[in-house]
């Protein structure tokens, strides 16, 4: 093991992030975009001022969407690969593949679901432009808090494991995480800027589609990156699985 392993894992993480981004893009385009369009329709029907279009809707919903989702996938893929380098062999008796999937699941929860439950994704026309600074600050604060607390909980679990056993150490660490996140939910300010007549079904369908995009992104990343990492770290075991699979094809 040398630093080329870190580099190789980083490259594979970014590639897996790109692949997962492509999957997420398909979901975003077919599941998310119709709701974005409906929300923009609501916005236009309820506002009298006409904004000049800098980028046309057809570009925003295709090339623009692709740029954003793919860059997001590559960036988080790189970060997750670096986190994987720290986690591998340290979090428990897991193979590289299982470590990658576990890490992705935790990333989905801490990077997205925990902030989402306090400050959920909003479609166009939900949100007062004058409060964008405050909302962005709170959203990133919630993300940062969630990630730092997840790291702290992992370290806590590792320290408790020799005394309590892996099971109860994990249960206690997750409970500690949940309690502190609960306090953050209780003390951080509430944001509710949904216009009075905005359709409730559109809002929850939009939010579910946003959740689906992230689930596909992180699920896809865990599987893709896990496979690439397994082949890099245990080249023989990945090969022998493939060899054993060949006779089964007859």
């Amino acid at each position: 093991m040398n630093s080329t392993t870190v580099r190789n894992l980083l490259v594979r993480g970014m590639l897996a992030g790109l692949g997962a981004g492509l999957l997420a893009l398909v979901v975003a385009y077919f599941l998310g975009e119709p709701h974005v369009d409906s929300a923009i329709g609501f916005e236009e029907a309820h506002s009298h001022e006409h904004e000049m279009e800098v980028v046309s809707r057809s570009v925003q919903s295709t090339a623009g969407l692709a740029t954003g989702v793919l860059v997001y996938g590559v960036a988080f893929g790189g970060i997750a690969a670096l986190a994987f380098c720290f986690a591998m062999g340290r979090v428990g008796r897991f193979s590289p593949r299982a470590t990658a999937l576990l890490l992705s699941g935790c990333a989905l929860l801490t990077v997205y679901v925990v902030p989402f439950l306090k400050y959920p994704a909003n479609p166009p026309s939900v949100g007062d432009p004058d409060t964008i600074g405050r909302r962005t600050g709170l959203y990133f604060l919630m993300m940062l808090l969630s990630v730092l607390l997840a790291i702290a909980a992992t370290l806590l679990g590792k320290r408790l494991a020799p005394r309590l056993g892996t099971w109860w150490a994990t249960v206690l660490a997750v409970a500690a995480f949940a309690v502190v996140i609960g306090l953050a939910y209780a003390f951080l300010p509430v944001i509710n800027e949904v216009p009075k007549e905005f359709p409730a079904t559109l809002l929850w369908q939009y939010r579910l589609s946003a959740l689906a995009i992230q689930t596909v992104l992180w699920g896809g990343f865990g599987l893709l990156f896990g496979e690439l990492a397994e082949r890099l770290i245990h080249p023989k075991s990945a090969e022998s699985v493939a060899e054993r699979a060949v006779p089964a094809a007859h």
Partner: protein
Amino acid sequence: MAQHVAQPPATTPVVPAELPLKEIAPWAAFFGVLMLVLLYFVGAEQGATSVFNGTDVHEWVHDARHLLGFPCH
């Protein structure tokens, strides 16, 4: 019958070795920051804060920003 029983696969170490922290650190520092800059441009540029003037970046990634859960406008 007995000779058809599958041989257990050759034992390979399932749990990988730990990578030394001092080898991860330089990669994590440099690429970690680079990846965060990318996320900033997708998630927040020309919204709450701006590095570049105008609204081009914001408008270009507008739909992704909304659908990825970032506050947009």
